[in-house]
């Protein structure tokens, strides 16, 4: 006992020391220039906002692309002269050309998966929440953290520039399978646009690695006194596993991308063998196009969990806070995150059941893939039990968290179809897949991101977003998500292939024209409502209702013990000490008990 006390006091001294040191370092806070405060900032909170706003800009671009190609899918017979005015030869005669369609689809996927739901989601909330929720003044390395954003910015600039190339951006699908992506002869988008795509992704991966290493280091080393791993909020656990996944899997994509660059520009044959393209006989022999798919999906599958897991964590936190109840089965929630993280590495080939993969090998991937349903089921049932007999406050964040659970169930269950190789033979690359991943990875993670933005907005800007706009945003988005993607399951069960610009020449797939028109209309409405959200976001930064209390949601976690508008360093005095887990809501008749409150003798055990 006495040693423990010494240790504690020792730690306290260390912390005060580092605190003093820190103040010395940044004594010039008040004269911080515009550049160092808003541009090359090393404050994790500012970097988080940079990620968020860049992500939102990308979100609008990526969303707009989907509206454009939905025009083609919904109204294949109509012409839109305005498109020709805007895009010239890409929409000659007011119709989206095939090349343009595939470029739009490819960039929609790339932008949403990487730039919005990876950088925009993880980048924002990992940066914002880790130091605030574990009780640290900043990230382990604020400088690397800053670089992480600027590499992302560089990646963004390169990707954005590729949109303006004469031959257009990459157009082989976001999975950029060679040989299509390797051969300029095979597709316009595989010319210069593909090189831009690859270089941009390389920069993106550097950004992601710098960020990820920082997140892991900070979580492992910089937790405040008393913040043992098992007292961390689930947000931090989720971000931790996300960062580990990213650090271990992104380098594999980098190697895949570099080999593809070699094949494209240096005449190597990693992915190319025995190819005759447009009558031209290529000399490459001995490569394997399937090798790329293994490298790609070794990242690509963990990537979907990189997208999803921060949302899982934030939703757990927000459901608990707004149910005024502890999260049900905290350890099971951590355990299931861990299981999902491990399994994420062992299932990549379920994207490749019909590539000619050895069926015996495929069997293992079926087993491991369907195993993921078990931790996912645990999470769903635990969430349901969390809200059961709660006292639910439907803040905008809570609405989106509830919507997330609904979408996670809907999209998760269809994964049980696709993970089963027998069914995948039939459903692979049909609209069933489109419906599945858009619901579970796209819309659900987006809902997690919105929940996070609404919940932590008061901490970010010291103001609230407008509630009425948020309610409209939520209900239209939820209804829209189901209206858009629910019918697509039926398309898929009719065998309708994805990535087709037009089905009218097909006897087997020409019967969904009406449904496609309806979907396109809904998609436009949903997109408009997202603009409402963006407007609400920026308007509220300056004009939103001011936050007047330090802890507006009555939450237990540490970020709500910091000042309403925390400066660089987060807490003006000592870093708070933690005495309990983050989920003592409704315990012993008390509404909530912050993590900083010491455990009293009279408290009941749980």
């Amino acid at each position, binding site marked *: 006992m006495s040693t423990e006390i010494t240790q504690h006091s020792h730690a306290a001294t260390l912390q005060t020391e580092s605190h003093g040191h820190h103040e010395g370092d940044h004594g010039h806070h008040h004269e911080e220039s515009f550049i160092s405060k808003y541009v090359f900032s090393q404050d994790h909170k500012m970097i988080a906002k940079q990620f968020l706003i860049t992500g939102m800009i990308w979100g609008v671009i990526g969303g707009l692309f989907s509206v454009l190609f939905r025009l083609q899918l919904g109204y294949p017979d109509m012409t839109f002269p305005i498109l020709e005015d805007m895009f010239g030869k890409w929409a000659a005669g007011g119709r989206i*050309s*095939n090349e343009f369609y*595939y470029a739009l689809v490819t960039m929609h996927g790339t932008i949403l998966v990487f730039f919005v739901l990876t950088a925009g989601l993880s980048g924002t909330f990992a940066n914002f929440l880790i130091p605030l929720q574990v009780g640290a003044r900043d990230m382990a390395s604020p400088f690397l953290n800053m670089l992480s954003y600027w590499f992302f910015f560089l990646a963004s600039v390169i990707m954005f520039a590729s949109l303006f190339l004469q031959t257009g951006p990459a157009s*082989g699908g976001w999975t950029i*399978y060679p*040989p*299509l992506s390797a*051969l300029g002869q*095979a*597709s*316009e988008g595989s010319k210069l646009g593909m090189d831009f795509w690859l270089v941009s992704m390389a920069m993106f991966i550097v950004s992601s690695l710098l960020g990820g290493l920082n997140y892991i280091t900070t979580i492992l080393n910089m937790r405040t006194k008393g913040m043992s791993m098992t007292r961390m909020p689930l947000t931090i656990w989720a971000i931790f596993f996300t960062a580990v996944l990213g650090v271990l899997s992104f380098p594999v994509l980098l190697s895949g991308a570099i080999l593809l660059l070699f094949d494209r520009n240096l005449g190597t044959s990693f992915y*190319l063998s025995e190819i*005759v*393209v*447009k009558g031209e*006989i290529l000399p490459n022999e001995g490569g394997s196009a*399937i090798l790329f798919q293994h490298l790609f999906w070794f990242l690509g599958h963990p990537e979907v969990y990189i997208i999803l897991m921060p949302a899982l964590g934030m939703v757990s936190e927000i459901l608990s806070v707004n*149910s005024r*109840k*502890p999260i*049900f089965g905290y350890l099971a929630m951590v355990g299931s995150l861990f299981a999902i993280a491990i399994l994420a590495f062992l299932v990549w080939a379920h994207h490749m059941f019909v590539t*000619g993969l050895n069926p015996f090998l*495929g*069997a293992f991937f*079926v087993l491991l893939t369907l*195993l993921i*349903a078990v931790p996912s089921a645990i999470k769903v049932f635990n969430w*349901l039990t969390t*809200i059961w*007999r709660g*006292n*639910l406050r*439907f803040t905008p964040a809570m609405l989106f968290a*509830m919507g997330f659970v*609904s979408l996670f*169930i809907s999209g998760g*269950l269809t994964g*049980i179809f696709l993970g089963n190789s*027998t*069914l995948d*033979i*039939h459903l*692979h*690359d049909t609209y069933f897949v489109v419906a599945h991943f858009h619901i579970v990875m796209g819309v659900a993670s987006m809902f997690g991101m919105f929940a996070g933005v609404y919940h932590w907005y008061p901490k970010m800007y010291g103001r609230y977003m*407008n509630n*009425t*706009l948020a309610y409209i945003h939520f209900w239209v988005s939820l209804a829209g998500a189901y209206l858009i993607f629910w019918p697509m399951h*039926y398309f898929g*069960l*009719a*065998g309708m*292939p994805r990535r087709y610009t037009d089905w009218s*020449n097909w*006897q*087997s797939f020409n019967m969904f024209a009406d449904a496609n028109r309806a979907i396109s209309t809904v998609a436009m409405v949903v997109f*408009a409502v997202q*603009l409402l959200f963006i407007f*609400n976001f920026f308007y509220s930064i300056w004009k939103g209702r001011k936050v007047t209390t330090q802890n507006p949601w009555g939450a237990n976690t540490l970020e709500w013990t910091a000042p309403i508008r925390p400066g660089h360093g987060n807490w003006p005095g000592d870093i708070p000490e933690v005495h309990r887990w983050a989920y003592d809501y*409704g315990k012993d008749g008390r509404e909530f008990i912050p993590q900083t409150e010491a455990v009293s003798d009279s408290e009941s055990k*749980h």
Partner: protein
Amino acid sequence: MTGILITSILALAFIVIFQIAKASEYVSVLKGEEKAFQQSNRINAFLFLSFLVLGLVGAWWCNKLFYGKTLFVQPAASDHGEKIDNMLWLTLAVTGLVFFITQILLFWFAYKYQYSEKRKAHFFAHSNKLELIWTVVPAIFLTVLVGLGLYYWFGITGPAPKDAQLVEITGKQFNWLMRYPGKDGVLGRKNYRLTDASNGNALGVDWEDGSSHDDIESTEMHLVVGKPVQLVINAQDVIHDVGLVHFRMKMDAVPGIPTTMWFTPKYTTAQMKEITGNKDFVYEISCDQMCGSGHYSMRGIVIVETQEEYDRWISGIKPQYKTVMEAKAPAASPAADTLKSVSMPPAAKPLAQNLTVK
């Protein structure tokens, strides 16, 4: 002009919504935050319940609209397809049950446990028993699904029967080419460097290999009903995918790596016309792997017919080798001799040289 009109209408709608939203914020300040919160909470709770009811009705309505357009209403056209349909129904039953239970609970709880001043949240942090139940029960269901799935999977991907008909299908941007082995039952050797579409050798067949001489090429796939067929699948330029939606089958075509799949067609095209009641019915081959700007138009046709019809069709087609040689030496017409000779026919020599130079 219409553009400006639409933009201004949208802008107006935005402004109206925004003004309402702002006004509601002022109202909530006047009314008192607590009271305004309780009111909006009740509305949202009610909306959750409404969403559940409307959602269930919507799901039923959607099913009514689209069920008849799915493949559920026609039998699978291959034996493998029947297994896949069984698996599909079983999975649908299990996941459907879970779907309805969990969604109903979620939205019902949202309504039932909405905020009330009187209610105290029930402190309930964990229960090993409950957690064990919802770990073990899904695990059992999944074991069944995995077990049955793999049983079917190994059946479908296992070796083709010995008597299976052999058909080669090759994908290129943006169409399909078929090759049949002829009487000897062996497909002639290929070398991609010999590909020369303008001289009748679109597939790069090596005419030096005697077994290529009776091979038949076609743009249609003809299959015999009730007879297993093994497809050998190739691609020339980029990855394609042989999607046979009515047979519920699919396999990628990868340049440099031949793949295979086999199945037994159950109904002739004519029979399917009757079953589906669609006189235009045709088995289609769709490319199911993104392959470039013409991907959506990469369509092929399968004709399933009786053995007699098939025999009649195939005997009416001249082997490709013969066609090429006749084109090379139209005057002499020595095709009958060269057909039997295994050695390099003189006529083919310039062709091969031509290619190697290239």
